[in-house]
């Protein structure tokens, strides 16, 4: 279980947010909402262990993630604003790299491409794909090997309605298998009985 206690961060000598207490149980989805600059991306990066909070701490099953960042990295999937694709490589090679990098079987790549409706495009260089296809290819990493925690930052940007439904389905399956999701999103993505967590702009 992922939990934060009294989380606060100062960036540019300004408090982005303070006193965030958030707990995510297995099977649960949390949707982060709030105006621009309220720190949705910042919070996701803290949960991923990319950023250290100024005060407070993030724990996984009671142990602080800062104590073992590598272990925490192995239980999460983070999807940020970039798709993390190399345009010179094919769709398959892009995914295969991430599979090898995290030490999971490369055989899962074909399934992951199929899952996102990219099965026919596997041999195409990522550079010739449309923005929506690139985003789907980036999200295909979610389907590589199961990991308990998904942290998604605006995953629906440049996706069409059908692809958004696809993503919603993936999140549903992930939760049904006991996975957790924290997602920052403005609109579109409807997640049944998800909890909404509103970030206020710090004064």
């Amino acid at each position, binding site marked *: 279980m992922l939990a934060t206690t009294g989380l606060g961060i100062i960036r*540019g*000598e*300004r408090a982005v947010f303070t006193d965030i207490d958030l707990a995510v149980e297995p099977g649960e989805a949390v949707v982060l909402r709030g105006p621009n*600059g309220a720190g949705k991306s910042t919070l996701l990066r803290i949960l991923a262990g990319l950023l250290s909070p100024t005060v407070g701490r993030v724990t996984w099953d009671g142990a602080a993630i800062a104590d073992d960042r590598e272990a925490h990295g192995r239980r999460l999937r983070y999807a940020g604003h970039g798709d993390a694709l190399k345009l010179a490589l094919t769709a398959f090679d892009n995914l295969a790299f991430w599979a090898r990098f995290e030490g999971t079987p490369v055989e899962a790549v074909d399934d992951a491409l199929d899952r996102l409706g990219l099965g026919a495009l596997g041999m195409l260089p990522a550079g010739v794909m449309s923005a929506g296809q690139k985003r789907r290819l980036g999200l295909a990493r979610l389907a590589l090997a199961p990991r308990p925690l998904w942290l998604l930052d605006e995953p629906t940007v440049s996706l069409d309605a059908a692809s958004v439904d696809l993503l919603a389905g993936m999140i549903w399956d992930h939760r049904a298998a006991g996975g957790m999701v924290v997602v920052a999103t403005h609109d579109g993505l409807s997640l049944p009985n998800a909890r909404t967590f509103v970030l206020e*702009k*710090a*004064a």
Partner: protein
Amino acid sequence: MLTRLANPTRFLRLADRLLPWLGGLTVLAFIAGTVWGLGYAPADYQQGDTVRIMFVHVPAAWLAMFGYSFMAIASFVGLVWKHPLADVAAKAAAPLGAGFCLVALVTGSLWGQPMWGTWWVWDARLTSMLVLFFLYVGYIALWSAIDEPERASKAAAILALVGAVNVPIVKFSVDWWSTLHQPSSVMRLDGPTIDPSILWPLLVNAIAFQLYFVTVLLWRMKAELIGRRVRALTLGLAAREA
């Protein structure tokens, strides 16, 4: 003691109490050292009156090296113990160190011209000082290239530490290089012993330079701390207006 000083407000108050004394002492030591060195210390039998350049050249060179060590230690303290004043001190020291480095280089050149008959020789000491100057320039450039103070301070600290590991290697390599390439006719700047009549004014001036360093360092640290407060307030205003 250190933790008490870590509080910037307390530090500012202490600095305000110390600064008038430091400033006065600096000026007095300068006058004493310079008058003694220029007027009363004897001229060298070999180098004549040019030896008086030593009274500014040597303290400047010492402080140029001291400045980098200070910066590296402050950076280490800032990175490891996250002491809030350490990176302010490191940033404030850099232009001072660079300034003394420049003074040491130019006065060395002005001393060298009558002695060696040339403005610049690729002597190991001068070359090391030149590389040290470049290291200062890089450090200052990195500070000014990164806008967010948190990232800039940590990046600069990493650079200072990597530089500090490299400085002895650079020094050694330059010494090695100069024995390889240098014709041995170059005169050594320092004799085996320095006469007390020269040593005393030199020490007084060295103390004056050190006092100057501390005084201006405190001014710069104060300015930096207040500047950060200003930055925080303006950003806060901007955030509220948005």
